[in-house]
């Protein structure tokens, strides 16, 4: 009996491993930055390059950093959702304009609307490297102490927003987590 059950058992284990492995999105790489301090930066603001924006300024606030670019196709899909979420006023959304040309970025915002409190211009992508960005759009939820609590690679979906980002942001705002 064992001589039939053993190979069958091994086969089932193999199938389960393969099923889990194939069901995963290989582009979702676990970020080592979760629960680590958000890297500091100081960058010129997109709309007014004479002013700068620094992550330090956001101490004491729960906020979202959204990496976007006018050349990024999934950003276009994500954009209407961001506008809706920004209107709800639940969490302030700041943009990191990633390796973009200023004119294109400004045109994008005037055409599609601007969900961001402000966007910082990361023209050569150095700040994005510090944040471990490898595929825009990426979204970070950062708490009052400047710790990254959540990261979404790829477009934010209503599901992720309602089930993960929003509840977590509310808890962080109440200080219960």
């Amino acid at each position: 009996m064992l001589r039939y059950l053993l190979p069958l058992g091994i086969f089932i284990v193999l199938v389960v491993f393969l099923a889990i492995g194939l069901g995963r999105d290989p582009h979702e790489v676990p970020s080592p930055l979760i629960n680590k301090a958000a890297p500091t930066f100081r960058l010129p603001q997109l709309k007014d390059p004479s002013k700068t924006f620094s992550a330090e300024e956001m101490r004491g606030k729960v906020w979202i950093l959204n990496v976007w670019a006018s050349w990024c196709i999934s950003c276009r899909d994500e954009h209407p959702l961001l506008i809706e979420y920004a209107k709800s006023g639940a969490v302030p959304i700041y943009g990191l304009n990633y390796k973009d040309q200023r004119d294109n970025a400004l045109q994008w915002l005037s055409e599609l609307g601007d969900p961001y409190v402000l966007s910082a211009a990361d023209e050569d992508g150095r700040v994005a490297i510090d944040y471990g960005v490898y595929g825009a759009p990426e979204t970070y939820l950062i708490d009052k102490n400047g710790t990254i609590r959540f990261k979404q690679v790829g477009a934010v979906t209503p599901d992720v927003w309602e089930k993960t980002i929003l509840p977590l942001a509310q808890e962080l705002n109440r200080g219960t987590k």
Partner: protein
Amino acid sequence: MPRLIGLVFLVLVVFGPALGKDAQPLANDPALEKRLNNLSKELRCLVCQNETLADSQADLAEDLRREIREQMQAGKSDQEIINFLTQRYGQFILYRPQVTPTTYLLWFGPFVLLLAGLVILFKYIKQRRDLIEEQPLTVDQRKMAEDLLGSDSGKESA
């Protein structure tokens, strides 16, 4: 007509490469470029995940090579640069992940499987050997055989 095609072909061959992406300017230091190349062969491009950082033409790969080059020029060791990258992108960027409890299965799993295979193989061989081992006839069996074969053959074999 063939002439025209030939001309178009010639134009493409001569000017085609010029249309491609400009090569990254090499640093003046060939030793450093060699070091950069060796290190980036060990690193995965996160955009096109089956390519090394050395091979990839993705924008991010170019940025990361620039970053690595600058850090090398600043006198950082390979290990420091690897730490810099894994802090940001995780172990996934390494083609040879470090040996930590989370990667034990990855590193030692194949050897465990090999060992298990060897154990099963030896057991199997031993079982086979037991099966084919010579079993001497009992006195009764021998007598029976002699009876069947006739008394002569019994004497000859004895």
